[in-house]
């Protein structure tokens, strides 16, 4: 009896498991391989559209499209609402259904791709594009008329926002190439008798010591988020190598420029530039330290300017990244650490309304850029906007607009290996903690470059 029961149980479990495994296999086969899929041909966009070409609605019909976009705060909600209002005027027959994206490293979008539920239009970035292009989840937009128009409208130097490192166009960008800057509290610097600008690492070390002696944190950094340590390292590296992390794409061992930058951060850490708890500090805590006058400097992207202005008015300004010496500082001042990785609104490879979806994606990108330029006063957008800004630009943005943007000599290049990116994240965070040596950094990075 006991044996029979055991046998029945095992048999039942095996049947259930194998039937489910069989279901899994079928699903896998349906997806097909990249080489077998029609969308993997030389012009995947055309191939992907073929089955649905006859289903394209006539202009008078209402077209319902789903759009995956970020929609959770003023920065994300207001441009979306603006673009939707404009879309209703321009394309009244198009109805967009919002499928909000999450701040989850694209996990929701990847799941939607895996299950075939990706919205027709999706706000995406380079890391997602790399996965999506392999699995034919996004249309390649190289030969679309909208792409040609977009290329003409691009702001100078923003080509890499539209054209991916593999030479294809997957999305229409609205943001320009953003970069990180060092903010400083003008009054605190004045009170400490510190001469500006700070041009060299040695000067920055002296400044750090001065502030530490006064009981002030020299630089607030929210390094619990690893990307900001990564950005700090890139900021210093770009002073030596304008391509930034782009040089790592072909490197098999760490370049001197990265080694120097890591060494500089190590020295600055020893000089007390960072708070003891820097690697456990989040954005809210770090920004509060700066805005409440407990830290003299703060590092973030240029997108922090409106917030900094709101909190400190004219009491805050930004500085260029220091370099190893004054000559390097002057010569590489306008080599920006921001990298032009492609991003923006892409079109699902499985949309049933390919033509309209492409038009809407391009339209949304244009209107997002228009909103950011005219309503926020942000000059860092992907395309030229022919409407005037309707808001008073903070002085810091004006400085960026007139002093930096017209003089930019280069932007950093995209690092394509996620694995090397993770290694930089980890090791740049380590540099902010005492006890981590330059040799360890070099060893870890060489290992990552070898394994990429």
């Amino acid at each position, binding site marked *: *009896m006991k044996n029979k029961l055991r046998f029945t149980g095992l048999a039942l479990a095996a049947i259930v498991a194998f039937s489910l*495994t069989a279901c899994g296999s079928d699903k896998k086969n349906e997806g097909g391989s990249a080489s077998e899929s029609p969308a993997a041909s030389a012009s995947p966009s055309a191939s992907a559209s073929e089955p649905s070409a006859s289903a394209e609605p006539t202009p008078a019909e209402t077209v319902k499209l789903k759009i995956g976009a970020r929609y959770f705060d003023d920065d994300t909600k207001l441009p979306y609402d603006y673009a939707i209002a404009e879309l209703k005027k321009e394309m009244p027959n198009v109805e967009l259904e919002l499928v909000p994206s999450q701040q989850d490293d694209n996990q929701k979008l990847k799941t939607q791709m895996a299950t075939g539920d990706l919205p027709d239009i999706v706000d995406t970035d380079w890391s997602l594009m790399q996965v999506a292009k392999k699995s034919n989840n996004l249309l390649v937009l190289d030969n679309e008329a909208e792409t040609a128009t977009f290329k003409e409208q691009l702001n100078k130097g923003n080509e890499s926002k539209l054209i991916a490192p593999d030479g294809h166009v997957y999305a229409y960008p609205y943001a320009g190439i953003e970069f990180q800057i060092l903010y400083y509290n003008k009054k605190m610097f004045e009170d400490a008798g510190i001469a500006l600008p700070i041009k060299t690492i040695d000067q920055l070390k002296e400044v750090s010591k001065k502030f530490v002696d006064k009981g002030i944190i020299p630089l607030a950094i929210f390094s619990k988020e690893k990307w900001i340590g990564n950005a700090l390292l890139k900021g210093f590296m770009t002073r030596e190598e304008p391509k930034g992390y782009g040089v790592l794409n072909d490197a098999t061992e760490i370049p001197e420029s990265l080694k120097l930058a890591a060494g500089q951060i190590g020295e600055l850490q020893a000089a007390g530039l960072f708070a003891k*708890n820097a690697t456990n500090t989040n954005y809210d805590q770090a920004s509060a330290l700066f805005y409440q006058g407990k830290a003299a400097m703060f590092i973030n992207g240029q997108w922090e300017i409106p917030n900094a202005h709101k909190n400190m008015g004219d009491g805050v300004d930004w500085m260029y990244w220091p370099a190893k010496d004054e000559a390097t500082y002057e010569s590489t001042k306008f080599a920006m650490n921001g990298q032009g990785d492609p991003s923006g609104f892409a079109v699902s490879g499985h949309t049933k309304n390919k033509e309209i979806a492409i038009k809407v994606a391009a339209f949304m990108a244009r209107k997002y850029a228009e909103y950011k330029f005219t309503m926020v006063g942000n000059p860092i957008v992907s395309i030229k906007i022919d409407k005037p800004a309707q808001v008073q630009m903070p002085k810091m943005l004006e400085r960026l607009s007139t002093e930096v943007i017209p003089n930019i000599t280069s932007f950093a290049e995209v690092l394509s290996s996620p*694995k090397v990116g993770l290694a930089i994240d*980890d090791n740049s965070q380590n540099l902010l903690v005492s006890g981590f040596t330059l040799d360890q950094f070099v060893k870890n990075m060489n290992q990552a470059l070898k394994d990429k």
Partner: protein
Amino acid sequence: MKQYLGNKNAIVLFLAPALLLYSVIVFYPIIQTFYRSFFEWDGLSEASFVGLDNFVKLWGDPLLSTSLKNGFLFALVLVVFQIGLGTFLALICADVTVKGRKLLRTAYFIPVVLSVTVVCQLWLAMYDPDNGLINKIFHAFGLSYSQNWLNLPESSIFAIAFVNAWQYMGFQFALLYAGVKSIPEHYQEAALIDGAGKWRAHWYITLPLMRETFKFCFVICITAGIGAFVQMLIMTNGGPGTTNYTITFMIIRNAFGANQYGYACAISVLLVLISLIVTIIINKVFDERREEAR
């Protein structure tokens, strides 16, 4: 009852729902994880079979030793604090002569019902190197011993493990207390009449009779330690760098950060195997002790 056990259809009918649920939620994902560990796969594209390459790669991954070491240290802290202290407190609370034991029993369990996020935030504030309670206590006593608790590569894992140990000590305490109470009181009484002291009686009678409870507690503590993740994620995000990585962190990093789902599956397989081996060893050790006791 006999009628039901003799009816095969009834057995199948009653077993099927639970078995189906178990198969779908546990068995099938485990099988899939084992299967996928032999592929190079980004989670979306066509996977390519690579045999044991993922396991070979895992063997050479420097993160593995860090993660394993952290997992076992984490488990050690849990065992010492949760089982060691939990047993001591369970024995105290089971002693009818101790006043306020009901209150203690409730108090020990309170952290278990708190959200893990709340507990981590609480300890983050306490560990703060400049304004945290722990360093302030040292200062208050005039001691210069203040630490950057969560940033020291050699000791931060203990600081984090302690948070888990503190929060879930009450859970182990509840199990151990139930174990103590399940032992008939007359064993203890007989030992006391024979002249044994209270703690001597516990050592020779209560603790050996709690073998099965200890076995269960050890399995829970050690497997929880090896697979620890949440506290590291909330408190240090695995950092500085990868200092506080565990095997679970490696899985998350490779699956969702590096898009290496096949490799992440191989790491998951290792985690499952380690947990299984540890469970088997604990069972063996406790069973051998039981044989020796006989």
